């Protein structure tokens, strides 16, 4: 993917693309192979015991079926302590092995090595924000293949959970504290990240793209993404920002979402919850981004979080320029 850092932001990668096994999607992270091995160890132990139980059950039902209602069984032992201890101890040994395997894999997950690249992850309803070491922040997670990365997660509002099935990892993002997740030996490609902790209306749309680059491409991406205005017009940057930051709630094609559509919004009257009507001009749009609770559009809930401190002035201007373009298209 060399089409540029911000391309194709609206089509998300598949969560479970072809490949992998029946049970598990393809792997893209260093620890995933070991996790899958633990999964399949438990899986085959479970299959063995389940088949054993069902075969015995069916066999007994057929073999010992009651032929006449007055039948008396031959009877049999009412207990056999040695047998019962055996079938307590064998599962005990097996589950201790399972615990140990799970424990070993987990230790690998929670102990990041020194020198990992820290990426700050801020979750909020219903988007992700990733801040890279150079201060650039982005709605998508981009990672270099050759380097360990540590995600430092927190949340702006309620509890969310950052989950990438291809990495076999998830971690809650909790308001008021930091949690950690680290990644190693990443395979270049595109993956889907999802929110796994219920967070309200847009929970199931709180998805984003994870892109693992070759190391050189990552640097190129980062420097380009850090200054999108260098090569793009305001409206073009605005389109990309809307796709990444706003699109999970606001459509650009007229469909109603969690929030009103952006299509044909600029310059048109908007009915508010309190019954008044305003015109969607630059100042209205700017206020709605920074202070969303002040002017709630009729028919929608006051659910939008503020983007104060997250969008720079120039970016807000870019979004407004893009909305102007959308309104023009709608009028044409």
């Amino acid at each position: 993917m060399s089409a540029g850092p911000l391309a194709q932001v609206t089509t998300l990668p598949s969560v479970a693309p072809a490949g992998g096994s029946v049970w598990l999607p393809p792997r893209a992270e260093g620890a995933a192979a070991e996790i899958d091995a633990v999964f399949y160890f438990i899986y085959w132990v479970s299959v063995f015991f389940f088949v054993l139980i069902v075969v015995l059950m069916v066999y007994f039902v057929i073999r010992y079926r009651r032929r006449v209602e007055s039948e008396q069984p031959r009877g049999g032992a009412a207990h056999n302590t040695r047998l019962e201890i055996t079938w307590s101890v064998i599962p005990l040994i097996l589950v201790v092995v399972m615990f140990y395997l799970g424990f070993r894999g987990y230790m690998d997950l929670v102990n990041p090595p020194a020198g990992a690249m820290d990426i700050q992850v801020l979750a909020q309803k219903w988007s992700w924000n990733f801040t890279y070491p150079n201060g650039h922040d982005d709605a998508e997670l981009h990672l270099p293949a050759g380097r360990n990365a540590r995600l430092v997660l927190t949340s702006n509002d309620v509890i969310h959970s950052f989950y990438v099935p291809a990495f076999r990892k998830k971690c809650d993002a909790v308001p008021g504290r930091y949690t950690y997740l680290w990644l190693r030996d990443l395979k270049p490609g595109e993956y889907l990240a999802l929110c796994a902790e219920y967070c309200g209306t847009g929970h199931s749309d709180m998805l984003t793209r994870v892109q693992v680059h070759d190391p050189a491409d990552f640097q190129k991406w980062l420097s380009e993404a850090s200054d999108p205005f260098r090569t793009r017009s305001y409206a073009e940057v605005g389109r990309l920002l809307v796709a990444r930051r706003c699109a999970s709630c606001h459509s650009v094609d007229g469909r109603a979402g969690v929030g009103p559509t952006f299509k044909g919004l600029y310059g048109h009257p908007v009915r508010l919850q309190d019954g008044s009507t305003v015109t969607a001009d630059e100042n209205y749009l700017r206020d709605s981004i920074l202070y969303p609770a002040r002017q709630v559009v009729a028919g929608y809930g006051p659910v939008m979080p503020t983007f104060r401190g997250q969008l720079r002035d120039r970016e807000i201007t870019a979004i407004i320029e893009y909305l102007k373009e959308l309104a023009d298209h709608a009028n044409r």
Partner: protein
Amino acid sequence: MSVLNPTIVLDQPAPAPAGVNYLTHTRGLRSWLLTIDHKRIGVMYLVSILAAFLLGGIFAILVRTELLGPAKTIVTADTYNQFFTLHGAIMIFLVIIPSIPAALGNFVLPIMLGAKDLAFPRVNLLSYYLYLLGALLAVVSIVSGSMDTGWTFYPPYAIDSAHARFGGVIPVLLGVFVLGFSSILTGLNFIVTIHKLRPPGMGWFRLPLFLWSLYATSVIQVLATPVLGVTVLLLILERALRFGVFHPGLGGDPLLYQHFFWFYSHPAVYIMILPAMGIISELVSVFSRKHIFGYHFIAFSSIAIAVFGFFVWGHHMFVSGQSPLVTVLFSLLTYSVSIPSAVKVFNWLATMHGGSISLRTPMLYALAFIFMFGIGGLTGLFLGALATDVHLHDTYFVVAHFHYTMMGGTLIAMLGGLHYWWPKITGRMYNETWGRVAFVLVFLGFNVTFFPQFIMGSRGMPRRYFNYPPEFTAFHQLSTLGAYLMAIGFVIIAGYLLHSLFRGRPAPGNPWGGATLEWQCSSPPPPDNFATQPVAGDPYDFRALEYDPGSGGYVMRPSAGARPAS
């Protein structure tokens, strides 16, 4: 330890004079609403719980219908979120927790002890009205349409929820608080009754295993439920008065809530599953006509599950950010619960070995329980192991695991128990053929609904999703199809059970050949259960019973009087 068989007083379950039984000896609404007869209270619980099950089931069908396709199918995201919240809250708090103990336990427990009633009959009636009050408060939140937090009420979401009207979660939390008292009082009542009202001849190890399981359940109810009460009260205060215990914006800690909540709610799943296991022990033994295998192991495994169950709550928080050390300890402790569960399954199978197995409807449910609880239990192993749980946590894998244990386990056992004791409760036999037909639908429907969810989950489908990646569509449609099949099965069950009330063949005292004491009184039982206190023998010794083709039931063999019960 040999006790003479009590044939002297009770060998002939003499049919009570026509019309005199607990259903008919007094009449009128008042005689029901103010009754202190455990049997009538049990029946009232049964009716209430089945009504709640219908309501929760309607929400389940709505949830599954919405998920027929990605994005909007029939309702908006907000409505969907309310549907799954109400489905969960109703099914957990109003159906599964009280189902077996409060309905079937209430009816059967005193009779199994040969007692006239529970130790505190009036407290029992109070429990019922508390249940009703709690249920009404929960229904208020349905009418107000403002509950969208999931049944777990996690803060800060539950405190900030933007959709809240009428105080948001407050009515339902008050409901849960009141229901907790109902549960505690029932638990206390059962504990005291089992301690004090056992008949002569019934030492602790002559107790039917259903009663061991109810005893273990009651201990959890009494010890864990107060924590839930405190927790929801704190959440109410947090919501109403901005207290600052759980909300990080007010200086609270949302993980503290999760610890409190799961300290109750994990043991609560054993409140749900233990009585189910007790029923299965009865059914497997009676319908195999063979002494339960390993009585002591089964009895102690109930107690072990109740005890271990208190120390595993942290496994709900493996990815919450709690300390890794705590996480590791909880993983180890979690596995401790799997052993007593496995022991029970092996013992049930051993009970069937060499028996005389009758595939009547209750036994079909018992076999289905072993099948589905087997899957539910084994998939728990994936979630107990830390490395795999980090991937599977909060996905459909958990949803499927939970439903395999709670619905495939508890609810299926409840149905088995309902069919088993239906003749005793109502005095009527249901149609066996329809029973089997409905069973097949429920069994197939259940597995078609929930098995695909394991695969969805391990491939990365998170739970509580309104919209979903299109590659999961086929799995979701299969799952919904299964839910419809199950619904048809439940409608058939309701149909033939209701039909039996009016047209069913009158039930004999002991239609299945059970040896526990409830089968020694008539069906339905007389108001006081027993004319004189019976003497208990071995509850799993079936040799003294003889089939009587005339009544279609079992009677005590006349010559069995001197047989020592081994």
